């Protein structure tokens, strides 16, 4: 059962990676990276049960979830406003400008 879970997780990680490599727009890549971070958290938890020290691995998985949230917020802010320091009044979207 655990083997099956690991297999499914690895396959879905590979699919997300494929989307990140091929993805025509930047939003595909943002989504792929986000899905990849979720899959990594799940993989770490599954590895914890495989090794038999699930309690430590679940702590790491929780930390990854929190840190991944910060990274997602930063990514979305940059793709919306163009940089991290802006307060949000001006809306210039570099993600849209750059798509030729």
């Amino acid at each position, binding site marked *: 059962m655990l083997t099956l879970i690991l297999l499914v997780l690895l396959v879905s990680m590979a699919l997300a990676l494929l989307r990140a490599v091929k993805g025509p727009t930047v939003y595909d890549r943002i989504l792929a990276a986000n899905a990849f971070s979720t899959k990594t958290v799940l993989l770490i938890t599954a590895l914890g049960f495989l090794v038999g020290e699930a309690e430590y691995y679940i702590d790491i998985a929780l930390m990854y979830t929190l840190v991944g949230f910060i990274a997602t917020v930063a990514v979305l802010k940059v793709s919306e406003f163009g940089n991290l320091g802006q307060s949000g009044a001006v809306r210039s979207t570099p993600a849209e400008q*750059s798509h030729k």
Partner: protein
Amino acid sequence: MIEVVTVILFGMLAVTAIAAIRLHDLFAVVMMFSIYSLLAAAVFVAMDAVDVAFTEAAVGVGISTVLMLATIGLVGRHEKRPTHRPGLPLAVVTLTGMVLVYGTLDMPRFGDPLAPIHQHVAPHYLQDSPVEIGIPNVVTGVLASYRGYDTLGELTVIFTAGIGVLALLGIRRRKRDES
């Protein structure tokens, strides 16, 4: 089982690295770097280096992605055309890599219990550090006491780097603007 997982993760790591080199949209490259760091952390966990995975989580996934995004906000999103041909750097890197691999041929096998690094001071640390220092965690004992001067030196270097960055960013000028 866990070896298979590690090998597959390493394969995906290589794919991510090559994709990050070949992409020219820097925003997409930052996304690939974030995937790379997640994969590296998964490899660390699979190889039972949980503490390294913690560091990778804090630095690689969170802070470095945010820092690279802040840089993109300053420098723009598109890579400039390279001004030189990649032939000579590729040759130098390949040669250096071959010399380094040649250098590892003399080293003891991975995990060899008779290797000098496992014979020198490690048994003493493992056996006597709870008595000598009184800290149950051996790694903390080594870092904080046996190698205390090393750690102090590292902290000095990091502190100096922090002061340098603050001086470059110019906190005094911003204060004058506000007043």
